[in-house]
């Protein structure tokens, strides 16, 4: 199981837990698992998120591997100028 | 729209006579902005730059007659003007950029009738007189009497300014113009102040003219400011009185460029600073 840190207001939508565990070995499995296990997160996931895996930020790459000990943090989808 | 570039004043007067929607073009730095913004839709533009004398600076009665199409840059390169009326030259030099200086004129700045025009308070302080030509002939008018309201002048239909006359400077006299802008260049004056003064042999103010711009619907000549320093050495007390009178005389509005309080306060600040410069010039010091 991968532990995923949620941002504050996202935690409220996941039942209040700041950290949730998801069975996932890749980014895609992680996002699918979150949507499945925590339907309250779906609107935010649909709007798009970025994911920090061990301090590196990923936006799109589904098959980015995630280790069981990886630090995984959901972030609002990054924008730039 | 038609464009004409007459070669004589008479031709220009004829072209303008009876023509509605006619505009005179000298430097064009205001006119073209309005044209582009569709604030005006002229039927006719009369370019006066090709009229003989319009681009000349001529000595006259100890003063200088400046053709209506003489640009700010040309004034700044004229040694006689710079020596006699540095405040007026600096004021016109503050209008816009180097590029705008290549075209902008005293007459145009005056006829644009913006309350914030930089050269106008300086001309008013200098006691400048413009020569107006038109269908009814020629008349000389003090600069202070040209602006009527924001964007409006006292010129009659078909009239235009042919030249600006800066009188003889007089002994122990100097002028200065300062304005406040948020940046160091390229802004419209938030407050402007022109001062011309003469000193007596003892260094007291013998005569003064103090003008303010951008703090009322049109440029103002502040007689009370002149009275406040009349007969006095410009010491701290005199300067403080001058500043107070100017702040009190200002009748500004709040707008995107400044507030009432700010403009009142800065009117006094600029008057004080301009007076010091004018005094130094009157004493023949570099300032």
């Amino acid at each position, binding site marked *: 199981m991968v532990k995923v840190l949620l941002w504050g207001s996202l935690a409220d939508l996941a039942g209040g837990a700041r950290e949730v565990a998801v069975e996932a070995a890749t980014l895609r499995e992680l996002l699918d698992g979150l949507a499945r296990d925590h339907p309250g997160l779906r609107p935010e996931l649909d709007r798009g998120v970025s994911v920090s895996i061990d301090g590196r930020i990923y936006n799109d790459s589904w098959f980015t591997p995630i280790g069981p000990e990886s630090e995984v943090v959901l972030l609002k989808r990054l924008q730039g100028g | *729209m*038609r*464009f004409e*570039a007459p070669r004589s004043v008479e031709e220009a007067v004829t072209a303008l006579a009876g023509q509605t929607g006619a505009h005179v*073009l000298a*430097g*064009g*730095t205001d006119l*073209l*902005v309005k*044209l*582009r*913004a569709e604030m005006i839709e002229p039927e006719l*533009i009369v*370019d006066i*730059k090709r009229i003989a004398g319009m681009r000349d600076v001529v000595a006259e009665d100890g003063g200088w007659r400046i053709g209506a199409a003489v*640009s700010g*840059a040309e004034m700044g390169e004229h040694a006689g003007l710079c020596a006699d009326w540095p405040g007026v030259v600096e004021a016109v030099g503050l209008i*816009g*950029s*180097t*590029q*705008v200086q*290549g*075209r902008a004129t005293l007459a145009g700045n005056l006829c644009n009738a913006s309350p914030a025009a930089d050269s106008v308070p300086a001309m008013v302080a200098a006691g400048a007189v413009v020569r107006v030509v038109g269908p009814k002939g020629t008349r000389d008018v003090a600069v202070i009497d040209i602006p009527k309201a924001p964007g409006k002048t006292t010129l009659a239909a078909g009239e235009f300014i042919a030249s600006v006359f800066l009188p003889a400077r007089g002994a122990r006299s100097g002028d200065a113009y300062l304005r406040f802008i948020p940046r*160091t*260049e*390229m802004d419209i004056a938030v407050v402007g102040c022109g001062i011309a003064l003469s000193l007596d042999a003892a260094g007291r103010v013998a005569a003064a003219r103090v003008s303010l711009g951008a703090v009322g619907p049109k440029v103002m000549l502040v007689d009370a400011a002149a009275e406040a320093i009349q007969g006095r050495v410009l010491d701290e007390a005199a300067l403080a009185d001058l500043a107070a009178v100017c702040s009190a005389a200002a009748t500004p509005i709040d707008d995107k460029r400044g507030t009432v309080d700010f403009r009142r306060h800065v009117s006094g600040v600029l008057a004080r600073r301009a007076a010091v410069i004018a005094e130094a010039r009157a004493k023949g010091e570099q300032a």
Partner: protein
Amino acid sequence: MSRIHVTTTVNGDATEFLCDAEATLLDVLRDELGLTGTKEGCGTGDCGACSVTVDGRLVCSCLMLGAEAEGREITTIEGMAAGDTLHPLQQKFIEMAALQCGICTPGILVAAKSLLERNPDPSEEEVRYWLAGNLCRCTGYDKIIRAVMETAADMRRAS
């Protein structure tokens, strides 16, 4: 509404064109003569991107009518290099990275050349005030000012 016939000199070449009375010199240069090196950034004389010289005097071409060009000598950025030999300012701007996007560059070069023709040894303050009407949003002006001053120094040494 008939168009106005204008005979003038552009970058040393005798040139004729027809223009509407309300067309600016900038419109004429860009749309009639194909000289698009002169840029329009504002149309109100506030940005300097349209700088050209008229009879040697630096002006904004957006603030001058095309019809006024009759009999004048206009110089634009396209007239700055001699064939494939760049003007020293042009060369220095490239070497010192004095441009990023490059939209303000033609106007700044025309203005800087005009400055150095009048004042071969300008102070930093003089360069900054001379160019105050040429807006640049990319560079913060630092490298532009340095390039103008270094070019002036090079040109003084060479003369």
